[in-house]
C-alpha cells in the first residue's frame, strides 16, 4: 500500500474512534505530549493502561465471585479503572465505570456483575482499536513516513 494511502487510512481510522465515542479529547492531549524527545509516549502510557487494567479486571472478577461480595474492595478497583481510563481518553470504559460505581454504592451484586461485563466489553474494544492504530502507525514509520497530525476540524 502506498504511504499516502496508509496515512489516509490512519487518519480515517483515528477519526472514527472519536466519532464512535471510543476515544475523547484527552487522547489528543496525550498526542500533544508526544514529540521528538518522547516519540513513543502515547504507546507507553497506553501500554501501562493495558497492564493496569488487565490486573484490575482480574481482581474485580475475583472479588465479585466471592460468596459474600466485599464492596469496600470492589469500589476502589472500579474507581482506579475509571481514573486511568479517563486519563488516556478511553471514554466508553470510563462511562461504564461510572455506572458500575453506582451499583457498588447500592450494593447490588447482580447489577455489578452486569457492569463488569459491560466494562470488559468496552475495554477489549478500545484495546483492540488502539492496538490496530499503533500497528498502522508502525507500518507508516517502517515505510519511512511520518505520522500525520490529527485534524481537529471534524
Amino acid at each position, binding site marked *: 500500500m502506498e504511504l499516502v494511502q496508509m496515512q489516509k487510512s490512519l487518519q480515517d481510522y483515528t477519526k472514527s474512534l472519536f466519532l464512535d465515542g471510543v476515544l475523547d479529547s484527552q487522547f489528543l*492531549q496525550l498526542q500533544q*505530549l508526544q514529540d521528538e524527545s518522547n516519540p513513543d509516549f502515547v504507546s507507553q502510557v497506553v501500554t501501562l493502561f493495558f497492564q493496569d487494567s488487565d490486573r484490575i479486571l482480574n481482581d474485580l472478577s475475583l472479588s465479585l465471585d466471592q460468596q459474600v461480595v466485599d464492596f469496600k474492595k470492589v469500589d476502589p478497583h472500579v474507581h482506579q479503572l475509571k481514573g*486511568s481510563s479517563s486519563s488516556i481518553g478511553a471514554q466508553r470504559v470510563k462511562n461504564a465505570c461510572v455506572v458500575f460505581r453506582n451499583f457498588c454504592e447500592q450494593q447490588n451484586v447482580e447489577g455489578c456483575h452486569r457492569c463488569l461485563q459491560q466494562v470488559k466489553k468496552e475495554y477489549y474494544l478500545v484495546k483492540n482499536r488502539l492496538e490496530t492504530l499503533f500497528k498502522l502507525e508502525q507500518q507508516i514509520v517502517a515505510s519511512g513516513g511520518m505520522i500525520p497530525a490529527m485534524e481537529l476540524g471534524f
Partner: protein
Amino acid sequence: MGMAAAEWKFHVLAVDDSLVDRKLIERLLQKSSCQVTTVDSGYKALEFLGLRQGTESNDPTALSPSPQEVNLIITDYCMPGMTGYDLLKKLKESPAFKNIPVVIMSSENVPARISRCLEEGAEEFFLKPVRLADLNKLKPHMMKTKLKNQKLEEIITPSNDENGTVAAVEPEIKDSVEMEIIKMLPIQSETEPKRVLLQVVQQEEQMLSNNKRKSMEEGLSTDRPRPRLEGIATAV
C-alpha cells in the same frame, strides 16, 4: 552554590498511586520545563523529603537526604493509606516544608473537598485529567522561585557581568506578564536590583492570589498568611 542559572530547573515532587497518572503528570511537568520526581504514596513523599514518622528534627539542613530541594509538590487526593489531604496537613505542620507550595489533584469535583484543601493551605486544586493548560497556573510559582534563586546567586557571588540577569532568563517565556517582569530586571546600580525584585515579586504575589482556583461556592475566604520571602526584602 556555583550553579549556572541555565542548569537550574524547577523541581516538582509528584505523588500518585496510579501508574498511568504518574506517567502522565511526569510528562506534563517535563513538557513545562520542570525536573520531576515521582513517588507512589504520601509515605514515600515524606521519606524523599526527609520527614520520617516521629523522627523530625527542627534543623532543616539535617532533614532532606535528597541532593536537590523540592520547589513544589503535586499530589493526588485519593490514595490508599495516606490521602493527599493527609500529606498536605503533614507538610503544613512541618517547619521545614510548610512553605513548599502544594497542589492537589482529584478526579472528583467535590466542592467541600476543594475548599477543605485550599483552607489547609493548598495553592491550587486541579481536576483530573490534568492538562498542559492547567500547569500554566504553576508558572507564577516557577518564576518567583527562579527569580529568588537568581538573586540569591547574585548576592552570594556578585559579578560585573554586563549582560546582567536578562541573558539568564530562558527565551521560551511568551506570557506577556512575564515579559513585563523581564523588562524590569536590567540592573541599573548596586542598590537598584533588590528594590526592583521586591516590586516584581509583589506583583507576582498579586497575580498568584488572582489566579488561585476557587471552590465552586462563592464567597470562599482564603485567609491564610501569604508565604513571606526571606533574605531578599532587605533594607536598601
